[in-house]
């Protein structure tokens, strides 16, 4: 009842004309980002943070959240119509979506993707409503040691699931942490890693880093190939509804996709691409005609698209309740919250209840806006895709420069963005995952503060982490995750040898 009351208050705020406008603009901009190739949700959301600077915190986060899930849907349009996924989560949609488009059923593919995304997103938001208060209340029992151990669980999952090599993921996580230490130490006020550069005393801001890693880095990778070669064809869009015999199949696929996306969204370190790929694999497995997958079956679009949007909304649960971002895009939202003076975590529900429930209510509204907006606008998105990439890239760079500069009205941040772009380019070439670095950059100060506060509480005694039950359980989980990942990282010959020795 209490939750319902909070949610109704949230709707009152979210339905105010200005907040509705922000959600609509966010959905449009997000879809645009999703449509443009080479600009994922993480870079796109970071790129658009500056346009929210002048908004109140509620409006700013409503708009950024709308950009986030708009981008998730935008990638679908290009996957279906031109076989170019706008972001990783939409790769799998190309398989059947583009085949459907070739058969003249692009409208059905987009329609079912929009409906699935709406249902997946709405159910996940409902999950957020139901779980938010109990989880936040449980998290209020956390002191610094529990919080430190919880952050370790989150980071270990991110590192274990990112990329092919555990060492590379670990080292990128450490690089992010070291970046986060630059500037004034939060406990004693001592300057660290500033090299005498005054601007570094304020620390490294996450927006230039994210824009560099995901925006400039991606552009440099694309620049290796001919920029003019990024594509565009034309898909015909007519009816948006599936055939009668397909409706039953769609309902089951959307149902499975919703729950899979929801549960994966709760686990830090997974990403929406995992949700959509896994959901596609499950659909193929349970289907009576798996051989038809890849030839334009409607379940091949419905399930992954539902899962990816359900994931996008469910991933906000650990952020809002525990202050734990599970992916780079969520970490950027967390950074935006912090920039607006709001610390994600259990106290958010106590100290800023109006804000948090307004954002949750706006997620419902945003899903409706996406549904209403996207189908009629499909033609417009296709036209935007016809703009040559070599022109788009110049405008993306202009936005990056404005975004980095306007953070602090300083060209230093543009320099930092370029440096991180180069770093991101090299990391991508060498197969070092960037997600752990972004997450640790944002979580670093909290991780360090909770570690040092814990050790101050115990006067330097490390047993504080093992004598408190919640912290102990969380540390055991961390150890299991690392042990499993390290075992999987071993060469198969070593594993076989070890199994042989045991036998």
């Amino acid at each position, binding site marked *: 009842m209490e939750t319902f009351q909070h949610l109704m208050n949230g709707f009152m705020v979210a339905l105010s004309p200005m907040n509705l406008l922000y959600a609509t603009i966010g959905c449009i901009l997000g879809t645009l980002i999703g449509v443009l190739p080479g600009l994922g949700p993480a870079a796109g959301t970071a790129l658009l943070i500056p346009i929210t600077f002048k908004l109140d915190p509620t409006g700013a986060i409503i708009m950024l959240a709308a950009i986030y899930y708009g981008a998730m849907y935008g990638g679908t349009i290009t996957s279906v119509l031109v076989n170019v996924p706008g972001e990783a989560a939409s790769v799998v949609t190309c398989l059947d979506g583009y085949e459907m488009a070739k058969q003249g059923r692009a409208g059905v593919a987009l329609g079912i993707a929009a409906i699935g995304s709406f249902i997946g997103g709405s159910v996940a938001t409902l999950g957020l409503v139901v779980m938010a208060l109990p989880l936040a209340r449980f998290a209020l029992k956390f002191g610094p040691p529990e919080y430190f151990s919880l952050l370790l669980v989150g980071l270990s999952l991110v590192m274990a699931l990112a990329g092919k090599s555990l060492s590379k993921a670990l080292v990128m996580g450490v690089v992010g942490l*070291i970046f986060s230490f630059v500037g004034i130490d939060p406990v004693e006020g001592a300057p660290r890693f500033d090299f005498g550069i005054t601007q570094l005393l304020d620390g490294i801001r996450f927006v230039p880093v994210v824009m560099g890693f995901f925006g400039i880095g991606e552009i440099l990778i694309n620049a290796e190939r001919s920029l003019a070669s990024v594509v565009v064809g034309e898909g015909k869009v007519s009816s948006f509804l599936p055939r009668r015999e397909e409706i039953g199949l769609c309902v089951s696929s959307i149902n499975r996709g919703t729950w899979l996306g929801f549960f994966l969204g709760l686990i830090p370190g997974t990403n929406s691409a995992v949700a959509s790929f896994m959901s596609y694999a499950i659909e193929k497995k349970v289907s009576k005609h798996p051989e038809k997958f890849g030839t334009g079956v409607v379940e091949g679009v419905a399930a992954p698209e539902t899962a990816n949007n359900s994931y996008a909304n469910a991933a906000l649960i650990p952020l809002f309740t525990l202050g734990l971002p599970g992916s780079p895009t969520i970490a950027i939202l967390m950074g935006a919250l912090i920039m607006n003076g709001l610390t994600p975590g259990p106290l958010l529900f106590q100290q800023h209840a109006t804000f948090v429930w307004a954002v949750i209510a706006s997620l419902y509204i945003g899903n409706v806006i996406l549904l209403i907006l996207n189908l009629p606008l499909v033609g417009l998105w296709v036209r935007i895709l016809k703009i040559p990439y070599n*022109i788009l890239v*110049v405008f993306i760079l202009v936005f990056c*420069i404005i975004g980095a500069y306007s953070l602090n009205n300083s*060209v230093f941040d543009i320099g930092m963005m370029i440096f991180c772009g180069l770093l991101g380019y090299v990391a991508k*070439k060498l197969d070092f995952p960037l997600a752990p670095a972004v997450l640790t950059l944002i979580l670093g100060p909290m991780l360090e503060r909770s570690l040092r506060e814990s050790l101050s509480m115990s006067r330097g005694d490390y047993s504080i982490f093992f004598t408190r039950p919640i912290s102990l359980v969380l540390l055991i989980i961390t150890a299991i995750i690392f042990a499993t990942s390290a075992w999987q990282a071993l060469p198969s010959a070593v594993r076989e040898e070890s199994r042989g020795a045991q036998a």
Partner: protein
Amino acid sequence: MSTVDRISWSVLLLFGAFVIYESLQINYYGSDFGPGPGFFSFWLGVLVIGLSVIEIGRSFRSNLPLPADFFPDRTGVVRISCLLGALVASVVLLDRLGYSLTMFLFCGLLLRVLGRQPWWLTLLLTLLGSFGTAYVFRQLQVILPRGILGI
């Protein structure tokens, strides 16, 4: 690939050593409030060195070939250099020339070199990317530098 891996992990090894050195310049431990500001970074430096040593050792045992497209071709290098050069130039010029003029040069150069569009379209897009974006963002109350000419 193993040589490239060896080089990249060696750079990380040096980075780890540098982090340890810097951490030891600040208070590592011993304050009344538990660990000092250099504590966490010191151990992270140790972790980077440990991982680098393991991976350098492993690189001697594997001999994976480099992917065919690992190094960009000549035109790729020219495009990347052009992009980076234009970005660095924008950092140098932004406060001096102001946003609109710097972006005019930035967009003009990149659209001409990368875009190869007709001159009238290049000019139109350059104006849009410089004076156009300056107008829109200033309307949104975003402060952009005006430079010596005040534009």
